[in-house]
């Protein structure tokens, strides 16, 4: 059952939220020890909320758009309940005094919050192996990674340990795990969703987005969380980009659709990925879409530019974790400087340290022009590529990840290799445009493959419809992993 079906069922009094919530926690009891999707869960609070929703509905009172639906939240979204750890030892016991704006929206929509999901520490990673607190595995094959950094959210959705989840995407962190776990993941346009309360990694790249079983669920989540927030100066106002009802015309296909493809990309990646991508293109062709060849001449440079910009911003965003005002503090600092250097050394994992170092270096005097400034210029060129491409087509199609889920430990010792696997997702973050990953097949080992569709800024409504077109013709999204006993 999808999130939307559940919501409708609860609203129609056919299903009780308490029953759905209890079922979710039952599944958690059974499968969490293996999957490890959650850092923390809120059973009591969730059931209480479910009961409250059921009561209101029974009494005929108005309830929110997500009333009674159990959802999971990536643990880099601040909540006043439980902890907000970002899967880091440095925030292991951090209790936020405020809720992120998207959390407030979920609460106002009467969603039932199941728990906070695991992730790569501070959202830095592509496999969730960089979590400082626990390991999450891919429900399709527990010897493999769920992808990252929103691996916990993707695994929870795929493993039916919640009905929908929120993740965050800075270089592909929603789309890639969605692809590796066979679910839907959307990175909205930069500025579409408030970042207030999202623990910052790469401020000019970060966006919160839904991870769901179906495209409709994604649209439903967008209805709840999209919109301007006065607390976020980078969130776009209604006058510039009005929010619409993403569900309204969702099932209406786009006629005369022009889809852009870069031949090298669709021929990129593993054989199975190539095959699935090619087949997906055929599906669109059958639907009457015109496939247009496009160029993205600066795509190759996206990874370099991204890792300079993201790490530079991260090195600054993570400076606040210093053991003084909150978070982990070292036991015996010799002086106030050691409060910083030891607390951070003890609290941060390797990948985080690496990226802080990289970012600090890129911004330091003498290197700023060569790295940071250069990267910002490359960013402009990449955005230019998209602008030109979208003159010839309405959406761009390419793989999400060159591979399916790789084995735990396979790439962890070679950070550069790990970075290079972000090749298809990163450019969208640099340009600020929206991108979605939808299930489009499986490889020989039965591992999910995702299809990526990109659209111009603030064209989520159209993007979702284009994705829905594919979904209506296929049943990949209905497949779920055979969870072991």
């Amino acid at each position, binding site marked *: 059952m999808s999130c939307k079906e559940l919501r409708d069922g609860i609203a129609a009094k056919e299903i009780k939220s308490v029953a759905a919530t209890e079922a979710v926690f039952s599944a958690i009891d059974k499968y969490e020890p293996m999957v490890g999707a959650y850092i923390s869960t809120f059973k009591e609070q969730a059931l209480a909320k479910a009961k409250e929703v059921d009561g209101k509905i029974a009494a005929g009172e108005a309830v929110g758009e997500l009333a009674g639906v159990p959802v999971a939240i990536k643990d880099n979204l*601040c909540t006043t309940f439980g902890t907000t750890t970002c899967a880091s030892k440095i925030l292991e016991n*951090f209790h936020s005094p405020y809720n*992120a704006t998207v959390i407030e929206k979920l609460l106002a929509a009467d969603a039932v919050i199941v728990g906070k999901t695991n992730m790569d520490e501070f959202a830095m990673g592509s496999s969730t192996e960089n979590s400082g607190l626990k390991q999450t595995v891919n429900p399709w094959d527990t010897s493999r990674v769920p992808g990252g950094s929103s691996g916990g959210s993707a695994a929870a959705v795929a493993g039916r340990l919640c009905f929908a989840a929120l993740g965050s995407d800075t270089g592909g962190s929603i789309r890639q795990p969605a692809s590796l776990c066979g679910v839907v993941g959307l990175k909205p346009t930069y500025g579409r969703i408030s*970042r207030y*309360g999202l623990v910052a990694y790469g*401020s000019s790249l970060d966006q919160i987005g839904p991870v769901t079983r179906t495209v409709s669920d994604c649209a439903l989540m967008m209805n709840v969380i999209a919109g301007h927030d006065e607390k976020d*100066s980078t969130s776009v106002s209604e006058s510039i980009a009005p929010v619409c009802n993403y569900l309204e015309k969702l099932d209406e296909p786009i006629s005369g659709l022009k889809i852009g493809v870069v031949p090298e990309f669709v021929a990129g990646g593993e054989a199975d990925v190539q095959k699935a991508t090619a087949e997906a293109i055929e599906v669109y062709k059958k639907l009457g879409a015109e496939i247009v060849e496009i160029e993205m001449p600066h795509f190759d440079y996206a990874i370099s530019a991204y890792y300079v910009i993201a790490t530079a911003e991260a090195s*600054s965003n993570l400076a*606040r974790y*210093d053991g003084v005002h909150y978070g982990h503090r070292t036991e015996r600092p010799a002086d106030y400087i050691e409060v910083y250097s030891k607390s951070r050394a003890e609290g941060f994992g390797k990948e985080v340290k690496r990226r802080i170092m990289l970012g600090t270096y890129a911004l330091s005097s003498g290197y700023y022009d060569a790295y940071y400034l250069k990267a910002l210029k490359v960013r402009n060129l990449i955005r230019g590529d998209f602008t030109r491409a979208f003159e010839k087509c309405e959406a761009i199609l390419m793989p999400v990840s060159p591979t399916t889920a790789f084995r735990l430990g396979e790439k962890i010792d070679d950070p550069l290799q790990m970075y290079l696997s972000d090749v298809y997702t990163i450019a969208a973050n640099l340009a600020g445009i929206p991108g979605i990953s939808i299930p489009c097949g499986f490889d020989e080992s039965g591992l999910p493959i995702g299809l990526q569709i990109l659209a111009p800024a603030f064209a989520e409504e159209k993007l979702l419809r284009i994705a829905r077109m594919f979904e209506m013709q296929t049943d990949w999204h209905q497949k779920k992993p055979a969870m072991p006993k």
Partner: protein
Amino acid sequence: MSNLQYKVVVGLEIHVHLCTKTKMFCACALEYGAIPNSRVCPVCLGMPGVLPVMNKQALEYAVLAALALNCKVAEFTKWDRKSYYYPDLPKNYQISQYDLPLGAQGFIEIPVENGQSKKIRIQRVHLEEDAGKNLHTAGFSQVDLNRAGAPLLEIVTEPDMNISAEVRALAVELQRMVRYLGVSEADMQKGHMRFEPNINLVVTKDGSEHKTPIAEVKNLNSFRALERSVDYEIRRQLDDFQQSGEVMQMGNKSTRGWDDANEVTVLQREKEEAHDYRYFPEPDLVPVEVKGQWLEDIRGRLCELPLKKQMRYVEQYKLSDYDAGVLTAERSTAEFFEQVVKEGGEPKRVCNLLTQLGLKLANERGCGVAELGVTPKNLAQLAQMVEAGETSAGASTSIFEEMVKTGKEPQVLAQELNLIQKSDVGELEAIVEQVFKENPKAVEDVKSGGKKSKKARSFLLGQVMQKTKGRANPKVVSKILSEKLS
């Protein structure tokens, strides 16, 4: 002290606290003396996930100040992060402005000797957020973040000052100016202004010039400390140069603190990487474009600046530089003065009334002269009464005081207090004649013109004053005496 010739070169960096109600990037109240850490929210505490939102009022105050400082206001400006680690800086970076400051290339006039003025160039004006406060006890340090995030205006001058008096004059003038503009209370007790002078010397030795290394003195918060630290630095640098001959080079600028107790500057611990601030554009804030109607609206809030006003009073009203300075120390006083003059008060008289009594009374009541309850019209009338001789200058202060107490008009009060000066020539002539009749010897003495004449004249005047119970207009009496006795 030495036989070297030298020129002093001083530039000044000033931080001014803007008097907005809330902080620069969050809506916490700015409240001096609040319980520690009680005016803090997730944003200024630098918690995970928070984002800054610009205070419009702070921006407008900053633009107003930049305009008053004759700066070019940047049409396009942005924010940058300045990174360094310190316990009173919760994010361990400060949101500031680096390469595109709000204002640049301006100037300010400062008063120098003999009622002249000197132009000091302003290099840049920009906005930033303040850090919190560190307090030190014996064994540890405490951090209070109430001030963290307060809006600060940073003003940097060119090194155009050459003596400590000029540095002080600049600081004082800036204080006056920002108060006039209403952008800062500039209360030194509350730490609203901080100064950091950069000092060096250009020494001429054996016909060639040598520049001593620049010293920056950090965090001064009084005019006195400012002036003295500059003077101390001049002496110290001269001594140092004579001993070591060290000259200015890349990287030998020193940072010093001021030890007020011993009145010396002290070298601060060298921090090699302390100055790599790794500036980069603040991704959480969008750029600011100040132009068009918005800029004009702000420009419309400029007022006549204090030094200009002061110099105008000297020229236009023939007031002394000192008096003009007193009247223009605060905008409300000056504006009140101008209103009284507009109502017909003779400027010098009004000036005297205000400087000799008005300001004192206002001070006692903790208010401005405009709030004494005396209307400009009434005060103008009082001044006119003195000018016309209806009451003496001495009496006018008593009347003024009563005006403040009762709010009554000066004419009424003069009557009630019996302070109407007799100026009627006919009436006074009669009294003079009477006095002459009663004191023939004195009249003789005056007419004779000898040694006793001056004393006798005073005596006669005194007698007239006595007969009129001090209410005769001495000028008029004197004139009558002169006419009758010559």
